[in-house]
């Protein structure tokens, strides 16, 4: 009876446990798996009549990526172009919805079906530590055509001081975007485009006030101004790290202390900067609170609908802006003391499980070259190699101000200003950034809502953040 059942149960449990042990055994050498680089084709000789070295076998690569349909198309075009240049290589691109990318990737890895090349987010660092992906430094050593110095100084995702998961494949940066017509109507001078002429914070706030109107047409300093009934905001500031960090940096603060041992945001310089942004909402009344901001959608729409006159947010929005009929412009960010900003972006990783590291490397280089994904670099992304910021012919290709995604002043305001004042972005520089940010976000919620000062809120989480602070990767 019970014994009978017991026997069955134990047999089945044993079966399941053996499944468990098989799974947990480092499954690196399973053969007979599908996907990724496949079986070397034995009929390759006949397929190789292209005049290229006939010792090349047919290679199949799997490439996983995410992105909106436009990005998808660009990737597909790039794949075709690469295949044309390298006839013995076939790339199977797999487009995976970005929100759940890691789930899919983890499953693939666990099932020994890891791709060869893939888009990646910050989880790549752990993979680097675990030895799952190639160290780009090693790959570059063997390739004379490319050097670390070719890339922007801080455009690297490293998991150790000297081990890199790769350079940015797509760069973006925080920018100030604005609605030209609204400025003209209000008779306000347009934002400066040169870093040397950047507005001081007070100048910036004064301009924002001139562009903020309540329903009765009053400005914030006018008597009878009603902060509960604002029709038009002067500025919408991104409340994420890409919004407040440039200002923090310009005030001499940083995410971590200079020696990388302490939490930097709770220190006076950083807290002051963050407080100033919060004051835009609660004191100056020129920016929408998170509550109001939820009803003011994406930057492009916000500017177009004249709900806000200026937006400080990521440069990827230039793509959307270029699709509107809006008369828009870009300016340099406002500062407190010095002009400091950063690039940030994602990178491609190459899995060590690949059977064709050389071709995978070539493909990842190909994708990182703006020439091959040019359209996306004309609005959505920016390049990551220095020569694209220095050689006029190259600059013209992606930053010519004739392009719809690059308004007048772009080269000074966005390209040059970031290039010449670059520091690392916390996202790829601070160890445990994702976790620290997850603690900082909620703390700042209260600051934006005006319930606590920045100093108070950030000091409160200091003890929680302390164990997470473990220094930086790049600088």
């Amino acid at each position, binding site marked *: 009876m019970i014994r009978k059942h017991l026997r069955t149960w134990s047999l089945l*449990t044993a079966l399941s446990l053996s499944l468990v042990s098989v799974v947990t055994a480092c499954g690196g050498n399973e053969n007979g798996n599908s996907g990724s680089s496949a079986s070397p084709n034995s009929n390759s000789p006949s397929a190789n009549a292209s005049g290229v070295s006939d010792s090349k076998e047919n290679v199949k690569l799997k490439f996983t990526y995410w992105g909106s349909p436009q990005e998808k198309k660009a990737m597909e075009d790039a794949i075709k172009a690469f295949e044309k240049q390298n006839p013995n290589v076939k790339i199977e691109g797999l487009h995976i919805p970005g929100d759940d990318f890691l789930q899919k990737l983890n499953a693939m890895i666990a099932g020994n079906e890891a791709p060869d090349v893939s888009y990646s987010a910050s*989880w790549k660092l752990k993979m680097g530590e675990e030895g799952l992906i190639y160290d780009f430094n090693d790959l570059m050593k063997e390739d004379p055509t490319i050097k670390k110095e070719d890339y922007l100084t801080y455009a690297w995702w490293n998991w150790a001081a000297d081990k890199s998961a790769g350079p940015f494949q797509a760069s973006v940066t925080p920018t100030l975007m604005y609605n030209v017509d609204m400025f003209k109507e209000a008779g306000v001078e347009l934002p400066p485009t040169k870093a040397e002429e950047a507005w001081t914070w007070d100048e910036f706030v004064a301009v924002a006030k001139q562009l903020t109107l309540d329903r009765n047409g009053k400005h914030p300093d006018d008597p009878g101004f009603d902060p509960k009934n604002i029709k038009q905001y002067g500025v919408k500031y991104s409340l994420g790290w890409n919004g407040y960090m440039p200002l923090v940096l310009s005030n001499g603060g940083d995410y971590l202390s200079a020696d990388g041992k302490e939490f930097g945001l709770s220190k006076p310089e950083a807290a002051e900067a963050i407080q100033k942004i919060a004051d835009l909402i609660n004191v100056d009344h020129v920016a929408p609170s998170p509550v109001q901001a939820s*009803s003011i959608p994406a930057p492009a729409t916000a500017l177009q609908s004249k709900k806000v006159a200026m937006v400080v947010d990521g440069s990827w929005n230039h793509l959307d802006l270029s699709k509107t009929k809006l008369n828009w412009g870009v300016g340099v960010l406002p500062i407190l003391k010095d002009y400091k900003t950063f690039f940030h972006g994602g990178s491609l990783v190459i899995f060590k499980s690949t059977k064709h590291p050389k071709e995978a490397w070539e493909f990842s280089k190909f994708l990182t070259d703006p020439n091959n994904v040019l359209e996306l670099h004309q609005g959505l992304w920016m390049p990551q190699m220095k020569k694209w910021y220095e050689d006029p012919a190259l600059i013209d290709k992606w930053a010519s101000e004739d392009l719809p995604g690059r308004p007048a002043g772009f080269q000074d305001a966005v390209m040059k200003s970031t290039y010449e004042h670059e520091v690392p972005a916390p996202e790829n520089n601070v160890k445990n950034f994702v976790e620290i940010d997850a603690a900082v976000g909620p703390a700042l*919620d209260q600051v934006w*809502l005006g319930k606590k000062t920045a100093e108070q809120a950030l000091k409160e989480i200091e003890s929680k953040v302390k164990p997470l602070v473990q220094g930086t990767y790049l600088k």
Partner: protein
Amino acid sequence: MSVISTETQRNIGPKRRKAFKNDLNGILFASPAIIGFLLFTLGPMIYSFYVSFTDFSGTNVPSFIGLDNYERMFSGKDQYFYKSLGVTIYFVVLSVPTAIIYSFLIALLLNRDVRGKAVFRTIFYLPSIVPIIAISFIWLWLLNPDLGLANEMLQSLGLPTSQWIFGEKSVIPSLAMMNLWTTGGTMIIFLAGLQDIPRQLYEAIEMDGGSRLAKLRHITVPMMTPTIFFNLIMGIINGFQIFSQAYVMTNGGPNNASLFYVFYLYREAFQFSRMGSASAIAWVLFAIIMALTIIIFKTSRKWVYYEGEGTR
């Protein structure tokens, strides 16, 4: 060695055979489910239990770390565990009873003889199959503290307005309220259950001159207890695992006030790459839900009436 007399043995014989036959039949009929469980469910469950005692990141080779994951959670080193548990329990307490009552009432309404029943029913069911982005936006609009309908109505009635999902204290009640809307499934189950109630029972009460309320109290509700029971259990199982609202609408905020348990779990697994920890978190939830379910099952004998349970 038997203590039973041979005579009794002879008498037990057929009974035992019958019992054995019953077992066989029962297992046979249930075999798809049993096999399914063994094949698809048991293995992964055991594996994730094992992983909860390791430092598995999702991609590395897990190594045993004993109770470390659990210790982190319960000792408070993990600053989110107790918070998310509290937040989730609060949500379940608010949303489950209200959802059941609400969908029951709607089902009653939709069970009546009204013209265009089918259309009404479909419409009421819609919010639970429309993509979450549409639902979120509508609610963001309705509950907008400055522009939204909800606050405007409250104001016109002279009542205090609320920050709704933007306030630390009001976010969970707001989400519980939103939840009412997506109870289409529960409503359908109630409808199906209502259909199962034999008409004669109602006719009998009518003949005795009973009121609408009497019908409800003495026929409808008692006959619906198996369905209510089901919806209660499912409500709890699902309520504890609520996820998308946090993921899509609030990101766990403001200030972690809507940091639902499964959202916190998901983050551990897929943003911090700590699958071992996530598994431990999952198993704690499992234990809680299991405990609650067992309690409800045990008390169900007192209030659930199965018409098909004469001999129990």
